[in-house]
């Protein structure tokens, strides 16, 4: 009976184990092999030696350096700004009753839209072509400033649009999580503070912030991880050839190395993916360590 049950359980688990084994566990081990096999040729499946040559190549590839720089900038710009604004909005939402549900519904919309599709709208809003200045440039002009092509123009302009679009895309998740965190703070604390005559600024610093700090740190960590994987947003804004636009990201670099008419360079792709993983892992680790000292867990 017992043995029978064992067998049955494994049968129920079999499909999941098969899928996970083939498409997650095996690839996870295999990626390390790819990363150290030098000059791997995908058609003949041969390689010339084992070593760190792929990492050397990737880390000295100007395209990778550019992608790394772009990704880091996007992370540094978008994570603090989006977390900050979403905290403000969540605080606003939790202090109103009228229209609250309508606002929440609207704020969530970017989550359910296709990044590639809506990115094109941002593209036409910010682009300046020979036919039209585009909406944003019309606004800039009416304020008396020089117009600038945000899509094919200077680097800072492209980085600005990429950051704005990224923030627009990630806000729904952050607002949702922060709003529910704020709603779960025990109302008795507020009542007690108000009886004591505490100011609203003081209530925020002494009650709200400590109570939701685990959520804020969770959002910062997932925000870092998400921003490090930036790619489709940039494709939507600047097109498939991100290297030419100078706006490639690390994930974009991995895909470019895989998807090549010459048979691809899985070794370089694996090395770049592992570098990305190492960065994300380190930052997550630092974040967790930092949060353990600063955050109050209930």
């Amino acid at each position: 009976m017992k043995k029978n049950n064992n067998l049955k359980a494994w049968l129920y688990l079999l499909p999941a184990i098969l899928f996970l084994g083939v498409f997650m566990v095996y690839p996870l081990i295999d990626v390390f092999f790819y990363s150290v096999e030098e000059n791997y040729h995908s058609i003949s499946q041969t390689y010339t030696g084992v070593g760190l040559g792929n990492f050397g190549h990737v880390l000295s590839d100007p395209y990778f350096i550019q992608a790394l720089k772009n990704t880091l900038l996007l992370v540094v710009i978008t994570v603090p700004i989006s977390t900050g604004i979403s905290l403000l909005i969540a605080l606003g939402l939790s202090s109103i009753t009228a229209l609250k549900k309508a606002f929440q519904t609207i704020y969530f919309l970017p989550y359910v839209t296709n990044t590639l599709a809506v990115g094109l709208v941002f593209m036409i809003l910010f682009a300046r072509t020979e036919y039209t200045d585009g909406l944003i440039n019309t606004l800039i002009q009416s304020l008396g400033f020089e117009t600038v092509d945000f899509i094919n123009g200077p680097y800072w302009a492209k980085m600005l649009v990429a950051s704005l679009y990224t923030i627009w895309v990630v806000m729904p998740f952050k607002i949702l999580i922060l709003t529910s965190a704020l709603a779960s703070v025990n109302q008795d604390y507020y009542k007690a503070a108000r009886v004591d005559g505490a100011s609203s600024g003081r209530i925020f610093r002494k009650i709200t912030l400590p109570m939701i700090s685990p959520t804020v740190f969770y959002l910062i960590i997932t925000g870092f991880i998400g921003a490090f994987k930036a790619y489709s947003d940039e494709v939507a804004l600047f097109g498939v050839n991100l290297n030419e636009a100078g706006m490639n990201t690390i994930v974009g670099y991995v895909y470019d190395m895989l998807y090549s008419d010459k048979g691809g360079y899985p070794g370089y792709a694996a090395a770049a993916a592992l570098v990305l993983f190492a960065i994300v892992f380190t930052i997550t680790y630092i974040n967790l360590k930092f949060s353990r000292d600063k955050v109050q867990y209930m």
Partner: protein
Amino acid sequence: MIENKKNISKVLIYLLLFVWALIVLFPFYWMVLTSVKDTAAYNNEKVPAFFTMKPTLANYVKAFTEVSLGRYFINTLIFTAATTGLMMLVTIPAAFAFARLEFRGKNLVFALFLSLMMIPNELVIITNYATIVNWGFQKGDLTYLGMILPSVTSVFYIYLLKENFEAIPNELYNAARVDGTGDLKYLLKVMVPICQPTIVTIVILKVIECWNSYVWPRLIARESKYFLVSNGIQAIRESGFGRQDIPAMMAAVVAVSVPLIVLFLMFRDKIMAGVSRGGTKG
């Protein structure tokens, strides 16, 4: 005095919320507006107009006739239905095994499953690509399989459903066993119906994910007749009428966006609750 101060802060709060609502909604307004503008009129607007007096649906006709948007929709439907269906076939039995069956190594296997949640897709995609190419699943109609198979598994949903299954009282299970009801029958006739809300949530979240997938299908689909909507939109921008005919491109963008927005408005609470329990985008 205090009352006044309170009112001012209320006004400021509503102002902030309205401004953000405007920022969120404006791109949607702009895409719908542009999609109904006449192409010639649009190209003559040196300064973009904020509304149009003569809306036209011609751009939508163009989007579905001059480029294969219809084909991209069908592909995406096939991909979404097959991936989501397969995922449920994998997820429900696995969640049941973890929640109800006793077997040796259960805790260890479950811990291994959970640890897989932390693996970023970028690490496994390299070998998966090689696997699919070796199997020949990026040629002809097999492309569908190549796109679908690696997208099936979602460890998180197994976890979510297992938690839900475990909340069902054990007495029910024991009573069913006494009655001689088999495990499979119990799973399908009792557990699945009871956990229907969670199952619906999982299905919707997976549908959203599939509808928006871009990078993996793009890697696998070599011929444009296998493109999904994301990929199709990108192709329209790069080589279709994107550069010359912005209104037609926006019509395609609206067509791609509408299904998910409708789905969201229908299942708003389920989707938001599901995402706040385990969404990771952002």
